[in-house]
């Protein structure tokens, strides 16, 4: 490859399209000054993508454009893209965009010999020059094959046209219909446009359609060959750069209070970690949504922005329900701190949801996101697909340091089934179980895991009242663990027992004291008896000793009298 004088390889220059996500997957946009082929079947979004390329060019990069339409009239185009917020009329009036509609009616044309398509060149050239266009769209130039009988001439002229466009230095999008087995496009446009080829697809699986995009070819540029889901809505096209999600997101040590003081205490004293992913699992009616609402309420109060994806209940219903436990979310909605996004999961496919969630997150820039409930997605695809998508969305939020709380509904109480096999994706996992017994159900809560903090391993009772949520210690007594009404009953029983026991103890104590007193009296009596006995014995002993002495003295005196020798 020839090297430039500065010793570096020539780098392919790219033109940013301005289309959400497309520039990411193409590594900067379309090849500058070269044609790009965008092909797909009818209704795959080719024209829309091409128009957005032009509109974004004008509005974001100050690059005027020319749209040469072979199919739709200017009015049709203006109306069609008006719903996407693109005001073509305004762009045309302000001399930033030229729309030239080419009409070829074969029934009106008689071919009488050799010709060329110089008319097309002249029109295109004058349109480009009139607004100093940098971007051109030809949609769909294949119509020429249908309008003109001489395919040989059309082929030769198209080749000339693309060469001419390159010389002109305009970045062009050429759209084409998807071809059959051997060709990408119906008339082999890929033969002339070899720099960049993008395929658009609209596939329907399980009655849900998903648009996908694939970069078939990008000469001189590294590109992903993966299929990327994309979305067309009121903001135009959004491509989801799924594979750009990596495990190198920033981590934080900042903490997010949960709004439940005892829960904060259980979570190392401070609550969740900012930017972490939290899973709250549990069966129906265990208080998952209430926990989420508490988190939202507390953090809106602190001026944080929250985004709530409600897949099960309408926002108004959530707000009403939460009022019953003393949480009023309405003021936050009014202040614009809390935004609800509610729709039924089954309305659209997995990718569409993923895209929609990402787009909303980009739009509202929330600090906290609630996904209620994650389990609803399980119905949308195979286990692996759902898992992949959830991992993507979790990673996406983590990358943007958004604290995300996902609720997950389980049909059984055990842990294995509740995590959708995804527990590794979550930093904190709170599991909630309803315990039934003694004719009542009680909510309990335990922190299964919580990365990066010392957390409590205790099961707590989750008590909701009109004053809010509180966590209460489970009442443990020798007779077992008790909560709810049973706690009250057991505590009363235990209290009574205590009293009785205490009374028993004092009675025995009294007895013992008495006994001790009696014993001590006895000891004293014995000691007195002994003392008397001792004194008596002492007297008689002394008398004996005196007598003995007298006897000895008498014997000595007698011997002295006998003059013994």
């Amino acid at each position, binding site marked *: 490859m020839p090297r430039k004088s500065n010793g570096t390889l020539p780098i392919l220059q790219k033109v940013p399209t301005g289309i959400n996500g497309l520039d990411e997957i193409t590594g900067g946009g379309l090849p500058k000054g070269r044609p790009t082929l965008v092909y797909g079947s009818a209704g795959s979004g080719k024209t829309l993508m091409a128009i957005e390329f032009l509109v974004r060019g004008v509005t974001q990069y100050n690059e005027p454009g020319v749209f040469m339409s072979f199919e739709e009239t200017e009015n049709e185009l203006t109306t069609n893209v008006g719903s996407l917020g693109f005001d073509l009329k305004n762009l045309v009036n302000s001399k930033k965009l030229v729309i030239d509609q080419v009409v070829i009616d074969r029934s009106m044309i*008689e071919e009488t010999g050799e*010709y060329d*398509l110089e008319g097309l060149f002249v029109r295109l050239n004058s349109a480009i020059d009139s607004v100093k266009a940098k971007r051109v769209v030809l949609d769909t130039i294949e119509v020429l094959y249908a309008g*003109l*009988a001489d395919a040989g001439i059309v082929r030769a002229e198209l080749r000339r046209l693309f060469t001419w466009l390159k010389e002109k230095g305009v970045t062009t999008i050429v759209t084409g219909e998807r071809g059959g087995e051997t060709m990408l496009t119906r008339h082999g446009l890929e033969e002339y446009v070899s720099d960049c080829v993008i395929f658009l697809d609209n596939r329907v699986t399980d009655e849900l359609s998903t648009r996908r995009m694939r970069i078939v070819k990008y000469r001189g540029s590294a590109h992903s060959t993966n299929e990327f889901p994309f979305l067309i809505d009121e903001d135009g096209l959004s491509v989801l750069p799924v594979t750009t999600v990596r495990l190198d997101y920033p981590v934080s040590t900042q903490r997010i209070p949960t709004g439940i003081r005892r829960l904060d205490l259980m979570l190392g004293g401070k609550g969740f970690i900012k930017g972490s992913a939290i899973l709250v699992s549990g069966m129906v009616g265990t208080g998952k949504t209430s926990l989420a609402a508490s988190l939202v309420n507390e953090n809106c109060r602190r001026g944080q922005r929250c985004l709530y994806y409600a897949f099960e209940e309408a926002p108004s219903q959530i707000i009403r329900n939460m009022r019953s436990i003393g949480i009023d979310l309405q003021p936050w909605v009014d202040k614009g701190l809390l935004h609800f996004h509610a729709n039924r999961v089954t309305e659209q496919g997995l990718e569409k949801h993923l895209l929609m969630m990402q787009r909303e997150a980009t739009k509202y820039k929330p600090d906290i996101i609630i996904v209620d409930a994650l389990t609803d997605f399980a119905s949308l695809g195979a286990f692996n697909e759902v898992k992949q998508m959830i991992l993507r969305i979790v990673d996406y939020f983590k990358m943007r340091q958004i604290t995300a709380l996902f609720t997950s509904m389980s049909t059984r109480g055990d842990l294995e089934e509740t995590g959708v096999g995804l527990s590794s994706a979550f930093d904190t996992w709170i599991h909630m179980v309803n315990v039934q017994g003694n004719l009542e159900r009680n909510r309990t809560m335990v922190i299964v895991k919580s990365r990066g903090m010392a957390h409590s391993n205790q099961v707590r009772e989750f008590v909701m009242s009109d004053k809010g949520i509180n966590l209460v210690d489970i009442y443990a007594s020798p007779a077992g663990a008790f909560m709810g009404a049973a706690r009250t009953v057991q505590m009363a029983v235990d209290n009574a027992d205590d009293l009785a026991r205490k009374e028993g103890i004092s009675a025995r104590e009294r007895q013992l004291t008495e006994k001790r007193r009696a014993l001590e009296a006895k000891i004293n009596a014995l000691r007195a008896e002994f003392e008397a006995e001792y004194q008596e014995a002492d007297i008689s002993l002394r008398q004996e000793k005196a007598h003995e002495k007298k006897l000895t003295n008498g014997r000595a005196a007698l011997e002295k009298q006998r003059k013994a020798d």
Partner: protein
Amino acid sequence: MKKKLLKGYDSPQNKRWKLRLFVTDEAPRCVAAYHNLTNICKEHMSSRCEIEVVDILEDPEIARREQIIAVPTLMKILPEPKRLLVGDFTLVENVLKGLDVIPRKTSQNTGGQYGNRHKKAA
């Protein structure tokens, strides 16, 4: 814009042709086409033709307005119906059909037939 009137336009006969030829400057094919056309006009139409020659390079707007893509293109304005003839008028039969000098059969088919011939030539 050049305007050329052919001799015989004021002929007393009823049938007259009002034609507009779109060209790009003096491109060889356009010059040849003009000659071919005038010859056909003389031979087959008793010179009862008014031919206006329009250079689309001078006025690209007219190419847009009149939906011209091929060059040369001849627009038959009169007699009705309006029709476009593309090419250099070497296929005389097609020209005569296109100008309604001789009756048209299934024009689409003939177009295809000649198209094939051109492909080989190209």
